[in-house]
Every structure is written in structure tokens, then in C-alpha cells.
């Protein structure tokens, strides 16, 4: 059964069209990948799903219920959790508290006591429980990202949006993280959308289905391996490299 | 946890140290309180009443010196006791006033209080003074309302606000019965309203016609909207003002918009030399209701004529003592504060007691004249004996022009036009 679906959703800033009449459906418990070059509208898409932006047109459904105009916090309550490309933990709070807050206000909606228990569990799973009393601001970028994943998981989401979570990890960590995410997703029946710019091998290991975005449009959707082997995608990625040089 | 505990201890220590100091002072003063008479006052040495406060301080100090050095102290049960004047700075803030008044009463063991300047601060200190049964003479709390609150121990040395401008109206009526159109332009605050309410009622009674009657909020930067409207009503007289800054602004803008009238009387601001220093010739001929002014003729002889007893220095002596402390001319704020000490001194000598109730009773009976004027209060503590004077800036001198018996010079009337003033015409024959 389809859990998340977008019906020709568009968002433009001034003249620039960030997301253009996009249709997308993600099944319950599915792990779905989005790839696309920098500026292809991936992050905007995430903001639309998590409610940071409202779409200019189109509708968004979660488990058959329309959420197009719900504020972010309401969507979080319905089970949407996300991470940010640049992690945004609550700096002056400790790691444990960061994760606990997720458990309190997310789908889990736990009380303070339980929230800290849940937080402890996920920190252990992610494997940074040794840092649990550190303040978030003292962590390395990588650790911050892990904390954010833990925070997102502690919300006990039904739909998890991962934004470049694996960037900058060594292959070993990536594999560990992927297996871990897969396990949690299966245990708790979460639909996971992971988006990456490159790191194709990671996405192949992780996602069953894949969508390639380009200039806010869906370039192609289908089985991960097939999609990645089509000529267009390769072109886009060659193109992307150049884009990559010119921008930033 | 530990940190929290430590912190608490630290805080407590901090407070205790401050406290020991408090105790030390208290006992110290306690022992001496018998062989001198302590009069205390919270004065506004900073904040919006800093100017008045400073003047009052110098005035009180001058009179303290007179009592101790010239009069040899206050005579109580055969002994001449020196006066000590104890004061703190209340920053013109009501919170400070209350704690300072209580300190004066309980720690410094003052026998009598002089109120802080202004009606609001006096009101703030009233409950404390009243609950400790301390007599308090107010200077500056000119609003009649203060004395309608039923405080037993609070009395007033100033003429109440309602009578500030009546003298001016009398004078004009007497000088020029044709001048009928009066315009009121004044600060929208408690004091100025009490003044203008009095003036309005009196003006109507005396057959003046009020052609303009509007206020401006406190601390204005531009009065031109009001003044332009006022100008269209073509008044003969302008009555207004509020405090120092706005009074100066009012005069300045009356001149820059060339509003020419026969007479202008502004509250408070023109009473101090600052006014003329700031405005120069523009100040010429501007009048001001004063509680007192150098040159006003209050003397033993005048007292004799009025059948009142005289106590205290002549105004020249006062001005001398004041000048020694401040090296400038005293304003009525200074004189008023000084007068409070004289009145206490006299009341003690007559009552031969320091008991608040006896003194309050004596203050009620007391009818006397001093350099500041007459003292005579009604049962509510409101001043009825003291009279206002009207002063006018003539050739750089602020001279009393009304009432006739107190006048030091003739009224210059009508005002020279602003253009004439700009050419240097002075308001003097």
C-alpha cells in the first residue's frame, strides 16, 4: 500500500522553478533513493514533504490523508522525520537530550522519563552512547550527523527522510550504518527516503527503487541498478560534475 | 547540585556583609540621636528631578548652617541642639524612595522628614512615613490631591498647584482689563494639569475667555503643531509649560513661530537662571509664577505688619549662605527646602518636644513668616498661608512684579514682539 504520495507538486522561488510538477509515491516500509546533482531540487522536495515549505500547486498525501497544508510539527506527529544536509542539533544541550527531545515530540510522543530511555537505546544502536553527556556543539560534524539520525529515529517515524547522511563517512561506517538502518526499518516498518548527490554504491546497497531528479523534474524512476545504468543518468552526472565545478 | 549549594552560600554571604554594614550604621546613629535633631530627606540627585533635587540640597544645607551657626541650634528643654541634615539620592525612582525613607526613619533615626520632590515620589513615601508616625513636610508635591488622601502627618510648604497662575491673572486684570483671551498650552502631566485646572476655573470666574486649551505629552521634541494652532486663535495671554526642558522649548518655538502676545506666563522653567542662559533675549519679559524669588519683600517688618512672628535668616543672609555652598543664585526649590528646616526648628522650640503628634499639632497651630513667606496650613496639611509671586525676566534679571507688596519692579507690559527682542529690545523701561 502506498504510504507517501505527491501529486504534481510544484514550488518556485521568484522565477526559479525548484520542483516542477513532480509525482512520487513511496510504499510503506519501502526504502527509496533519490539522486540528483546539486540544485536539482532534492532539498526543496524534502522541505515540501516535511512541511518547511508549502507547495505552490499539487497535493501531498501521507497514508491516504492529505497533509499539503499541515505545519511541520503536525507532520512530524504523523510520523515524518528528517535530517538536514548540514546537521542542526541543539548545540547547548547534551547529545542525550537532543535525542530525547525527538522522542518527546515526534510520532513517539513519549514522556520525559521514557524519552530518555528511548534516547539511550538509539544512541547505543547508532553507537555514540559514549558521547551522551557531551554537549552537541562539542561534537565533530560526523558525530553531529549521527546524533541527528538518532534524534530522527527516536521520533519513531513512519517516514524517514535522510539527507546526504553518508557523505564523508568511510566505507566501513557506511556499511554499518546501512545495515543498521535496514534493520530498524524492517523492525519498525519505516519507509525511508535517502537522497544523495553521489555515493552511488551506497545507494545501490540501500535503496530498492530510485528516482533521479534533474532541474526539479523526475528524470527517471525505477529499480536502482537499471536506473543508474541508463545513458541519460550518466549524462546528467557528467553534466553535474561540470555544474559542480562552476557553482560553489 | 554542589555548584547550586555553593552559589547559595555565596549569595547569602554577599547579602550578610551588606547587612552587617547596615547594623553598624544603625547602632552608631542610635546612640547619638539624643543630643541633636536629625532631619532627613530622600532627594533626587539623579534622574528626571536631578536639578530640583540639587537645588533643594543646597538650600537645606544653607539653612542648616544658619540654624547651627547663627541661631546656635534649636532650643529644646533648655539645651541648644544642633541640626543634622541626612539625605540619600532616590534617583527620582519610587522604588528607591520607599527603602530610603524607611532607612532614614529606622537606621538614621531622623526626627523629621522632608519629602522627596514631586507629587508621585511624595505619595510613594507617604505610607512609610505615616506608618512610622513621622511628620513630613513636602516641597514640590504641589498637587492638591496629595493632601486629600487623609495622611495625618504630611504637610505642605508650597502653595498648592491650583493657585500657581491665579496671581498672574489678577495682575493682568488689574493692569489691562482689555486683555481677555487666554490660551493654555501645557505639559500633560499630573502637576501641570492641577495648575491649569486651577487657572481655568479662576480665569472663567474672572471673566477671561479661554480660546485655546491643549496639552503636549511629556518630553516633546517639537511643539510646532500646537503652537501653529494656538497662533490662529490670536490670544492676548499665554499660560503654560510644565518642567524645565519643555518650558524652554515652548519659549523657543513661540519665538521661532513669532507668536506675539501681550503676556506669557510659564510654569517652573523660567524660575531658574538656566532659562535665561539658554534663551538669551528671547526670555525677556517672560513671566513665571514663583513660590519665592530673590528680592521678594518678606522681612521682620512685613511680619510685624501682618501680625505674624518672624523666624530665620533674611533672604540676603540665605542667599549668602546658599552662594557659599553652590556659588549661584538660589531658586525657589532651594528656598522651599530650606524653609522646611526653619519651620521644624520653630515648631520644636514652641512645642518643646520631638513627639510627632505634638509637632504635627504645633505645625497646625503655627502661623509664622520666614524668608520664604508665610506658613499656615489647614487641618489636611495643605498650605493656605503662603502666597505665590509672579516674576518677570527684565534685562536679564528675574524680578518679582506681583503682588505689589512684594514687587521689586514694575510689570513690563505688553511684551515686546519677538522681532523687537531679536533686535535687542529688553523688557525694561
Amino acid at each position, binding site marked *: 500500500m502506498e504510504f507517501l504520495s505527491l501529486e504534481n507538486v510544484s514550488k518556485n522561488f521568484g522565477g526559479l522553478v525548484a520542483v516542477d510538477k513532480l509525482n512520487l509515491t513511496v510504499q510503506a516500509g519501502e526504502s527509496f533513493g533519490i539522486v540528483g546533482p546539486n540544485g536539482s531540487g532534492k532539498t526543496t522536495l524534502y522541505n515540501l514533504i516535511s512541511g518547511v515549505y508549502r507547495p505552490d500547486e499539487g497535493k501531498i498525501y501521507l497514508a491516504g490523508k492529505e497533509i499539503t497544508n499541515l505545519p511541520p*510539527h503536525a507532520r*512530524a506527529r504523523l510520523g515524518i522525520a528528517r535530517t538536514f544536509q548540514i546537521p542542526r542539533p541543539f548545540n547547548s544541550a547534551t547529545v542525550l537530550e537532543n535525542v530525547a527531545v525527538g522522542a518527546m515530540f515526534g510520532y513517539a510522543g513519549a514522556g*520525559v522519563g521514557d524519552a530518555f530511555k528511548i534516547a539511550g537505546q538509539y544512541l547505543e544502536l547508532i553507537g555514540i552512547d559514549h558521547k551522551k553527556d557531551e554537549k552537541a556543539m562539542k561534537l565533530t560534524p560526523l558525530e553531529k550527523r549521527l546524533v541527528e539520525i538518532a534524534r530522527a529515529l527516536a521520533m519513531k517515524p513512519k517516514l524517514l527522510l535522510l539527507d546526504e547522511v553518508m557523505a564523508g563517512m568511510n566505507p566501513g561506517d557506511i556499511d554499518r550504518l546501512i545495515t543498521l538502518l535496514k534493520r530498524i526499518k524492517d523492525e519498525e516498518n519505516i519507509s525511508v527516503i535517502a537522497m544523495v548527490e553521489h555515493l552511488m554504491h551506497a545507494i545501490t546497497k540501500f535503496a530498492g527503487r530510485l528516482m533521479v531528479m534533474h532541474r526539479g523534474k523526475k528524470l527517471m524512476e525505477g529499480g536502482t541498478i537499471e536506473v543508474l545504468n541508463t545513458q541519460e543518468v550518466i549524462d546528467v552526472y557528467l553534466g553535474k560534475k561540470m555544474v559542480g565545478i562552476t557553482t560553489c | 547540585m554542589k555548584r547550586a549549594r555553593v552559589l*547559595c552560600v555565596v549569595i547569602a554571604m554577599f547579602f550578610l556583609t551588606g547587612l552587617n554594614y547596615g547594623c553598624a550604621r544603625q547602632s552608631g546613629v542610635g546612640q547619638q540621636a539624643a543630643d541633636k535633631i536629625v532631619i532627613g530627606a530622600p532627594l533626587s540627585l*539623579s534622574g528626571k528631578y536631578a536639578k530640583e533635587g540639587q537645588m533643594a540640597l543646597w538650600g537645606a544645607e544653607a539653612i542648616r548652617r544658619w540654624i547651627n551657626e547663627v541661631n546656635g541650634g534649636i532650643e529644646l528643654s533648655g539645651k541648644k541642639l544642633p541640626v543634622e541634615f541626612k539625605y540619600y539620592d532616590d534617583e527620582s525612582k519610587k522604588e528607591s524612595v520607599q527603602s530610603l525613607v524607611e*532607612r532614614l526613619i529606622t537606621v538614621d533615626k531622623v526626627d523629621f522628614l522632608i519629602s522627596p520632590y514631586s507629587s508621585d515620589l511624595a505619595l510613594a513615601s507617604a505610607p512609610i512615613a505615616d506608618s512610622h508616625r513621622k511628620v513630613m513636610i513636602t516641597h514640590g508635591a504641589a498637587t492638591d490631591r496629595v493632601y486629600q488622601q487623609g495622611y495625618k502627618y504630611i504637610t505642605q510648604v508650597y502653595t498648592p498647584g491650583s493657585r500657581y497662575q491665579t496671581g498672574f491673572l489678577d495682575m493682568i486684570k488689574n493692569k489691562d482689563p482689555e486683555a481677555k483671551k487666554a490660551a493654555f498650552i501645557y505639559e500633560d502631566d499630573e502637576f501641570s494639569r492641577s495648575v491649569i485646572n486651577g487657572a481655568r476655573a479662576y480665569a472663567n470666574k474672572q471673566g477671561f475667555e479661554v480660546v485655546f486649551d491643549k496639552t503636549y*505629552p511629556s518630553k516633546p521634541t517639537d511643539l510646532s503643531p500646537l503652537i501653529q494652532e494656538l497662533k490662529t486663535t490670536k490670544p492676548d495671554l499665554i499660560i503654560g509649560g510644565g518642567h524645565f526642558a519643555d518650558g524652554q522649548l515652548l519659549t523657543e518655538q513661540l519665538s521661532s513661530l513669532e507668536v506675539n502676545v501681550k503676556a506669557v506666563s510659564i510654569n517652573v522653567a523660567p524660575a531658574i537662571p538656566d532659562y535665561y542662559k539658554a534663551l538669551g533675549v528671547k526670555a525677556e519679559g517672560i513671566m513665571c509664577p514663583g513660590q519665592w524669588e530673590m528680592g521678594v519683600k518678606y522681612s521682620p517688618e512685613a511680619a510685624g505688619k501682618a501680625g505674624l512672628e518672624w523666624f530665620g535668616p533674611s533672604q540676603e543672609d540665605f542667599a549668602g549662605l546658599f552662594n557659599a555652598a553652590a556659588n549661584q543664585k538660589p531658586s525657589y526649590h532651594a528656598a522651599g527646602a530650606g524653609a522646611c528646616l526653619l519651620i521644624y526648628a520653630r515648631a520644636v522650640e514652641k512645642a518643646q518636644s520631638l513627639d510627632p503628634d505634638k509637632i504635627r499639632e504645633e505645625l497646625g497651630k503655627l502661623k509664622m513668616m520666614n524668608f520664604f513667606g508665610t506658613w499656615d496650613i489647614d487641618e489636611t496639611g495643605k498650605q493656605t498661608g503662603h502666597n505665590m509671586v509672579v516674576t518677570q525676566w527684565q534685562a536679564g534679571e528675574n524680578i518679582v512684579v506681583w503682588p505689589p507688596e512684594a514687587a521689586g519692579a514694575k510689570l513690563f507690559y505688553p511684551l515686546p514682539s519677538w522681532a523687537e527682542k531679536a533686535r535687542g529690545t529688553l523688557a525694561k523701561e
Partner: protein
Amino acid sequence: MSLKKYYEFLSLLVFYAVLFFLGLAIPGMWQPVSLIMFYVALGQCFNIFLGLTGYVDFGYVAFLAMGAYGMAIAVDLLHRQGLGVFIIFIGLVLAVLMSTLLSLAVGAVALRLRGAYFAIATIGVNEGFRYFIEGARLWGGSEGIIISGPLRQSLGPQTVNYLSTFVADVLVFLIAILAAFVTARIINGKMGYAMMALREDEDAAKVIGVNVTKYKIIAFVISASFAGLLGACAWTLKMTYVFPADVFLITYTIEAIAIVMLGGAGTLLGPAAGGLIYGILKYYLAIKLPGLQLLILAPLLIIIIVIFPEGVVGTIKKRGAWRPWNS
């Protein structure tokens, strides 16, 4: 655990108690103590909003003013009804009512704005309202309301003196304690974490499910209604008058901010420490150096803030683990 959570609050109680009995024990100490307590309470009340949400409300004093007027109006209207001391309770109720209503109105409108824009908008409310009262001659206009007379007629001088020189101060103590308790409750509960989240990163807070608007308004209204109580007790009841020029004075807001920052925003002990330091400095300098105290006070404040950039308590805590909710 749960008592441990409230350790700070309990130590705060001890501190208040010490202050209270010092005030009673030593002649001449009561008013100074109540002066200090006014600043402490002001800090405690303001901290609920400023400290916990990180939003600055420059117009905060308007809520004290509302409270002050609430009490004054109640007395002014009802002193002839022979209600006795009960009139004070009505006054308190009206005070809370008026300040809460204003805060709801302001909150609904202004809390959409962020940072400095919110701060200045609240100044607009404060000043605009003040000059409306003066301009429209509302509630006595600039002449305000003097309640000592009416009160003394209906309750008798002794009672009123007692009310305004003792009871009012005790009420201020109670307000401070209550405000501190509410603060402790909030930061120990779920709400505290929500506010931590929105203080740290409003957008991140949203996407993890924190209804930031809701929590902002809650903090705003609670803080405002406490301000109303404080205004009613520490101003109208204690000073026995209300003049608009004096109750809408923006300086009080800035003093409140100063106190909270001096102690440490968002901490429970912060406002107490800040208020204590500020009050004591003010009082003893005023006694030692009348006329010069502010000249000394200002540099002292600067030195303190340079040594403790996050407030005395805040900085001390920061040097250790930072857990306002359970140390």
C-alpha cells in the same frame, strides 16, 4: 529523581526564606529587602519568557502597567461597596485578567515576528498604549489613579499602611516563589525541552514536532500574567498610585533584561542572583555615595558582564555540564 530535579528550586526557597527573615529581624531592612525582592521577582517573571524562549519583549513593562491599573481600577470603583480587604483579591484578579488579555492580543499579533522585529513591535505596543491612555483621557489620563485616599476611607489608615508597607512586599515574595516554581515545573517537564529546542533552532524544533507557536504563546502569557500580579502588588498596592508616565517606563523592561542577563537567562537561580546583585548594588551605593551611585553602578555592571558573559549563574554552570532542568 523528582526531588533532585527540584534541588535548585529548594535552595532558592531557602534563599528567599533567609532574605525574608533578615528583612523582619533587622530594623530598616524590610524595605531594602522588598526593593531587592522586587527586582528578583521582576527577573523571575521575565525569565519565564525571555529566558526560556530567547525572545526579547521590550514592552514587558506594559504588563506590569496593566496589573497596576487593574488593581487601581478595582479599588477606585469598589471602595465604597464595603468589601473590606476582599477588594484586594478582586484587584489581583482584575490585574491578572487585564495583563493576560493584553498578552494574548500582543502575542497573537507580534509573536509572528522574529528577533529584533518582535522586540521593537512590543515597544510600539507599550508606548502606543501609554499615549492612548493619556490622549484619550482613559483611566484618569495622565493624572492616573491615586488609591491611598479611597483605601484609607474604606479600610482605615492602619490597615492600609500595613497593606502597603508589609503585605504588598510579602505578596511580592510569594510572586517570586510562584514564578520560580512555575519555571522549575516548566524546565523539568516536556515543555522545558520544547522551549530549549525552539530557543536553540526554531526550524529544527518544528521538524521534530515541536509546536513552536503554541509554546511561545504559553510562555508569553504565563510571564505576562505574573507581571500583572507584580505590577498590582509592587506598584499600586505598595505605592498607592498609578501614573501612566511612570508605569509604562521602558527603563523597567531594560532593568528586567539586565537582571536576567546578569544572573543568566534560562536558569532558575539566574534571576535571583541578578536581582540580588542589582538591588544590593543600587541600595548600598545610594547610601554610601548619594548622587554618585549610578556612576559607580554602571562600570560595575560592565565588569560583571565582561567576567560572566552568560550571566553569573549561567557562566558558572557553563563551566560544568549545562542542565538547567536537573541540577
